[in-house]
């Protein structure tokens, strides 16, 4: 934490003052006491969850909590991510920070090999989420990682990606989620209450859309700026995804 700056102003930078130190130690003691104190034992919600797991439509308990029992949290979280992208794009000028030289043959070949594999792994995690560890977030993280890899290597695959799709893909997740929630409300059920026999299908659809949206949002956050849409679109007319893979 100690600042290594050599400027005159850096005196005391990064050093906790004694008053703060005492307060922080006090806070740690209080928190530890709260954690270690007896009488706080609770089995949590695990038993109640197990009892109603059959109603959720999925076998994975974490997925059941995320997309059924506490789907409201996930809805809000999708919107937080969406607002994050909106805020970052509003704060930074349109364009790109990266003016790196084009990557070498090995790096670009590796990226071309890895990115489809990462998308495949993301799809697998999405599918696995219904009965084991996995789900929309993990899949979204892998897809986002693929996007980060493409951004870091300023891959030509990026320019093959239609820029309009980025904005639409990012919006799709939260608003599809909201739509599902509101439809339930319109049909006389509670907010985000799925129809029992449709629950499994609804969750899979929500997860697929959310994973795509989360992945795109994470990559967009990493990019840090809104990519130029029109200039690059004008340069090439509607490249198909297959065409992009060829290069």
């Amino acid at each position: 934490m100690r600042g290594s700056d050599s400027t005159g102003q850096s005196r005391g930078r990064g050093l906790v003052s004694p008053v703060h130190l005492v307060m922080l130690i006090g806070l740690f003691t209080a928190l530890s006491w709260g954690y270690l104190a007896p009488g706080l034992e609770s089995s949590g919600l695990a038993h109640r969850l197990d009892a109603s797991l059959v109603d959720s439509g999925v076998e994975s308990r974490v997925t059941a909590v995320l997309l059924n029992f506490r789907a409201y949290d996930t809805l809000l979280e999708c919107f937080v991510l969406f607002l994050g992208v909106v805020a970052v794009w509003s704060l930074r000028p349109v364009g790109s920070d990266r003016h790196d030289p084009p990557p070498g043959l090995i790096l670009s070949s590796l990226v071309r090999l890895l990115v489809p594999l990462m998308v495949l792994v993301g799809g697998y995690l999405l599918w696995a989420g219904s009965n084991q560890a996995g789900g929309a977030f993990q899949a979204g993280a892998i897809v986002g990682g693929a996007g980060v890899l493409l951004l870091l290597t300023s891959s030509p695959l990026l320019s093959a990606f239609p820029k309009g799709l980025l904005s639409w893909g990012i919006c799709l997740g939260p608003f599809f989620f909201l739509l599902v929630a509101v439809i339930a409300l319109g049909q006389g059920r509670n907010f985000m209450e799925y129809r029992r026999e449709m629950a499994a299908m609804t969750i899979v659809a929500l997860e697929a859309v959310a994973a795509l949206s989360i992945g795109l949002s994470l990559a967009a956050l990493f990019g840090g700026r809104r990519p130029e849409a029109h200039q690059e679109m004008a340069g090439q007319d509607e490249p198909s995804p297959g065409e992009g893979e060829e290069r």
Partner: protein
Amino acid sequence: MISTPALVYGLTGLLLFVVGLAGLISCAQLLRKILAANIMASGVFLFLVTIAHGRGIVIDPVPHAMVLTGIVVSVSSTAVALALACRVQETANIHDLRKIRARGDER
């Protein structure tokens, strides 16, 4: 009684939280504050995952779901904070809160 691994993980989580808080208070540079907030968040996540395994035999999935949600939220908040810090750096050419305050006092 808390098992030893739970004790180690739980206390480490709390310690990370307090260390992050110390960094948040004492570092004047914006980037360090953002990193400190991330360390705090990591401490909270570690703690939540620990109490999920907690004291029963059954693992409570609710804290796990909260951590998954929290990770995404912390990524978004970090990105927004970084964008704000970049903006401050670009418009005022400073990355240190004390200099911002000093400049505010001059005016």
